[in-house]
């Protein structure tokens, strides 16, 4: 299962105990109306991966999204994938397409400014 950090994702019913752990220990965010989970900067990604892989019996892979265009940043093809631990870095990155743009840094700053309004 791939989880895009900071983006909503669905989970099958995991049981009361696991759900409580996800909320209390892992510090995952849950939207009761939309019934979706979301990681935040406070989420313990190690625990989340361990707990979900044990519960769902499948490996958990994290991906980060491009802060400029919102798409998957493409970690598997990233030139820094061997040195970038996705459990330790912040939730957004930049995709190759946006990075190659002439004004990539200005676009990035603009997106942050827009998001903080």
């Amino acid at each position: 299962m791939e989880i895009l950090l900071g983006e909503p994702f669905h989970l099958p019913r995991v049981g009361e105990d696991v759900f409580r752990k996800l909320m209390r220990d892992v510090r995952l965010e849950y939207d009761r109306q939309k019934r979706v989970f979301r990681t935040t900067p406070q989420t313990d990604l190690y625990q989340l991966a361990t707990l979900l892989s044990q519960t769902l019996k499948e490996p958990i892979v994290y991906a980060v999204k491009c802060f400029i265009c919102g798409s998957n940043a493409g970690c598997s093809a990233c030139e820094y994938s061997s040195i970038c631990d996705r459990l330790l870095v912040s939730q957004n990155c930049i995709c190759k397409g946006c990075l190659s743009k002439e004004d990539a840094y200005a676009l990035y700053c603009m997106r942050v400014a827009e998001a903080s309004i």
Partner: protein
Amino acid sequence: MYAERFRPKNPSMMVGNEESRIGFLNWLKNWKKGSKPALLVGPPGTGKTTLVYAAAETLGFVVLEFNASDVRTKERLSSALLPSTHSVSVLGERLLVFLDEVDGLYARQDYGGLEFIQTFIEESNLPVVLAANVEDDERIRKLLPKCEIFAFKRVPPRLIYLYLQNLVKKEGLRITQETLRRLVEKAGGDMRAALNSLQAVLASPSSEVVEVTRDKMVSLRDALNTLFNSNDRDEARRALEACDTDIVEKIRTIFSSLVNSKLDSQTLLRALEALSAADELAARIKRTQEWRQLRYFHSMLAYLIFDSTPRGVVRFSQDVYPWSVQLRIWNDARVLRSIGRKLGNLLHTSSTEALVVYLPYLARLLSLLDKVEVQRILRGFTYDESELRVLNKEMSRFSK
């Protein structure tokens, strides 16, 4: 220094940790008297200090910065901070109190400092921002419920590249793309290290990329997660070395992680034996104060635990006892308090005194009597079923 010269003046000009940056900016924008103070937690070089200054400048605050690891005794802290609690502005500008490296304060065992900060943040008329490198320290955890937490993580390499690339272009610096890429790789998510390395590379005739890092610290949680999950023994050792938590606390947390994880009894036994060997060395280091042996301690601890536990099974936990045992202790403590209250009423004393002074005598006396007689006496105390169960447990300690 490049790290100072090219420090962003606006929060939107920084890179990485977008959600925490935006959250902190909104916290400061909406701050009013009575709001919780902000606690920025994350490794060095992730932008905590830069954000405080950039946000303050953007929103018109003047920062009063105190480095908690410099001004760390209660007396010095109070003389530095108390005058500011009653001030609101300087020449019409609003003030913001920034206490950097609060974990440095606690690591040095400065008694009274923590209590002072706890009181200070509750009474201050000004927005207070605290910054720390690690969250897992027991003393920092005391501050967590009182603060609005903004977690900072390492900056993704591509974003460091983006920032440096823009800087190189803007300043007209002469550096090859390959060197820039190697520089990003060496930075390890630390923006300050990347900027300092860039400066070092530009100053060096060989353009050799050297690792320029400040005290790169790893939280206890990250260090132990690496120890339990990594497939590389040396990586596990390096993670333990990079974590500056007290060695006894490391042993204690590894112990609680082991006993709370689902390990079969043989594996658990092997792991606990390994841990006890490291514990002996830790005790010797503490006793003899031979801190040079610390490097052997970390190697020993990392390699022994690495070799005795399966990868990815042990889960970080700071609960000393498994939850079921904790629950039992908690329940018994609750019942004991109630026993103390009833006994205290009867003896016209406080419940604490009744528990500490009189209950052991009562339990000893009752342990000498036969069961029927004991039940008759205890009914006279109006103890209920759960209280009788706990009292019987106390009595059984003496009858053994």
